[in-house]
């Protein structure tokens, strides 16, 4: 019998095995993350039809909720863990060939534990358990950002660590307040009693939680670490940090705001923060000359858009936000992965070094172009229906304020289009820099183990872009999972 707990237990067990295997024989350790994520993908696909009918509440230690930690494998949880498994699997395949230097077995251990933390976060229904998995995610990303051990990596790891550690302490403080107020840690149970406590106190506890999780989610005032961390990490880790880790932070914020607090005034704040984050991110990305920093700032912009969709607090808005989560995870992973070997071949992260890449690394460049166009939101790619859903949700409100905000979002898209077209032009239509042609032998295409995941991601982006229906069927239930507080309480507590 498959149980959702396997999604957490099996990768965790594999992560414990990895260093053991590494002691005996280091070579096969690099296949373990891919194996774990493939397992999760299969289990997730088996679970999906069942949880769409009725969410699966998993007990631990055999006690009925809320008296022990329980997991809530609802449509949202399983869909997000599928996304994590999919992106994690493809990046793991990429990393088989890409990560060669340093302590390889340790890299794969940390990578598996990062993904386990993210999976646990989206599945758990217990506030403190959410914190523990959040810490697993954060601490392994601190270590992986500094994996290469160079100056930039260590420095950005230090910054990320300081801000992340303070954020985690704030989360813990918030949990302390919540426990003091409610005497319980089950999110459903807290949600049930939230109305009986004075709103001021609830607000303060929620403010701590949102601020703390917001550090990882990289919303506006709390994202100083992101450009450094995402640009200094190895490309495979940048892909996971941008594709998965931030989303986990956003998920935690959304879960706290919508499920615990219930949609109140906070979504309005999210709306403003989202638009500001979008604008700052896109503007900063526009002025970058470093390709990885540009992609990192573009992640900030996209997170702004996702938070904007969540802030609409309507079913269509949240659906759009979830659609964007999927599309951004795929597209940004694709961009970082395809850029990884370009940087490896040229030895530089400057955009000017990428001139003429379209001739030297045609497949990577083509896939990069697909990812870039998808992020901008051009029609045949997945980014288009995603952005379209969010904009439509904003216009649906039929309020001049929301329409104005939607216009600002479109402005951000224009800026995004401008800088991505600049790169695409550099890739395909500029002559390669002097001297590059002489070392032609080094400038070949990326190896097959890197091209397979890149091409698969590109294919997925096009496929879902052409038939958005394969995804939209699941987004509605997932959005309801997040928004419908009463159903959430009912499924877990049975009241």
């Amino acid at each position: 019998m498959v149980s959702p707990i396997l999604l957490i237990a099996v990768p965790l067990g594999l992560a414990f095995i990895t260093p053991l295997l590494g002691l005996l024989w280091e070579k096969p350790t690099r296949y373990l993350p891919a194996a774990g994520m493939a397992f999760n993908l299969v289990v997730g696909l088996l679970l999906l039809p069942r949880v769409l009918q009725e969410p699966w509440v998993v007990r631990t230690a055999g006690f009925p909720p809320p008296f022990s930690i329980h997991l809530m494998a609802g449509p949202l949880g399983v869909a997000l863990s599928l996304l994590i498994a999919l992106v994690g699997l493809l990046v793991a395949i990429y990393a088989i060939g890409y990560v060669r230097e340093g302590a390889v077995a340790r890299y794969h251990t940390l990578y598996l534990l990062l993904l386990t933390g993210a999976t646990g976060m989206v599945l758990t229904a217990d506030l403190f358990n959410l914190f523990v998995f959040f810490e697993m995610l954060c601490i392994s990303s601190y270590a992986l950002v500094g994996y290469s051990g160079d100056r930039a990596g260590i420095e950005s790891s230090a910054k990320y660590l300081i801000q992340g550690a303070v954020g985690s302490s704030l989360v813990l403080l918030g949990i302390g307040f919540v426990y003091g107020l409610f005497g319980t840690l089950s999110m459903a149970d807290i949600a049930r009693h939230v109305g009986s406590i004075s709103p001021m106190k609830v607000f303060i506890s929620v403010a701590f939680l949102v601020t703390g999780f917001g550090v990882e989610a990289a919303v506006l005032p709390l994202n100083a670490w992101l450009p450094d961390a995402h640009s200094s990490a190895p490309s495979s880790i940048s892909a996971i940090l941008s594709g998965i880790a931030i989303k986990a932070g956003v998920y935690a914020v959304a879960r706290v705001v919508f499920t615990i607090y219930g949609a109140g005034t906070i979504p309005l704040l999210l709306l403003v923060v989202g638009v500001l984050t979008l604008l700052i991110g896109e503007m900063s990305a526009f002025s970058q000359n470093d390709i990885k920093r540009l992609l990192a700032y573009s992640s900030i912009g996209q997170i702004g858009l996702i938070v904007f969709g969540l802030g609409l607090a309507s079913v269509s808005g949240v659906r759009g936000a979830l659609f964007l989560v999927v599309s951004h995870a795929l597209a940004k992973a694709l961009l970082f992965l395809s850029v990884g070997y370009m940087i490896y071949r040229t030895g530089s992260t400057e955009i000017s070094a990428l001139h003429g890449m379209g001739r030297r690394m045609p497949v990577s460049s083509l896939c990069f172009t697909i990812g870039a166009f998808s992020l901008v939101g051009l029609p045949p790619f997945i980014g288009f229906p995603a952005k379209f859903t969010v904009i439509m949700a904003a216009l649906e409100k039929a309020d001049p304020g929301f329409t104005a905000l939607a216009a600002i979002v479109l402005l951000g898209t224009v800026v995004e289009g401008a800088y991505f077209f600049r790169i695409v032009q550099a890739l395909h239509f500029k002559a390669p820099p002097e001297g590059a042609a002489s070392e032609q032998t080094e400038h070949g295409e990326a190896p097959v183990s890197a091209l397979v995941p890149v091409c698969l991601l590109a294919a997925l982006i096009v496929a879902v872009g052409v038939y958005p229906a394969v995804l939209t069927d699941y987004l509605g239930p997932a959005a309801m999972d997040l928004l419908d507080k009463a159903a959430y309480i009912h499924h877990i507590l049975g009241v």
Partner: protein
Amino acid sequence: MKQALSLAVLLLLAVGLASALRGPSVGAEANRTALFDDQKVNFGRRYTSRAREETGAPNVVASVVVTYRGLDTLGEVAVLFIAATGLATLLHTGRQRVSGTAPEGASLIVFTGCRFIFPLILLFGAYIFVHGHLTPGGGFQGGAIVASGFLLVYLGCRDREPSRRRLNALESLSGLAFVVIGLIGLAAGGSFLLDFLPKGSLYALFSAGIIPLVYVFIGFKVGSELGGILGDLSGARR
């Protein structure tokens, strides 16, 4: 400027905290006399009244840590594992180890004392984590005491330092054992970390189902991980 700004932030935070605590205060004390008591779930009261029957362990904290919130504990063990792995990664990649000045050897008295005391500390740590379900203490505390034994070794008698490979193997195996215990529970009773062993008689050493077993593994794991962290940071040879 920076200082003034920081102080302003702190002042804001302090005001917020003070207002949060105003009025009927938060906490178990306030919950004891809360109005909506009849319908409200309270973890603490439920555990203190029922845990002894449900888990067979007199130490309620131990039963909460291992049974009711076992998944947290598994996650926490994983966090420590991440820290140990990440620390080794950060300290040992991307450079050749600079073999600094060899630490000067400790005096004969310290050396002999360390060698004499080290097994006793290990024994004490083991006692703490074996009796975790009966008395205060448990896997984490016992493991930390074992690790402080290693601290003594790194400070006093370096040539006695433990083999890193063995420590790594031990931490992996005990972590794996924890997961396997959880999965056996899943197979036996359909629920992860289910207590599948007999409860035994209260206050006996061999009682309380899986709690002592899990605590022993946590003790090994925490001890070897913290010992490894200390070894890495002290610049011990690998």
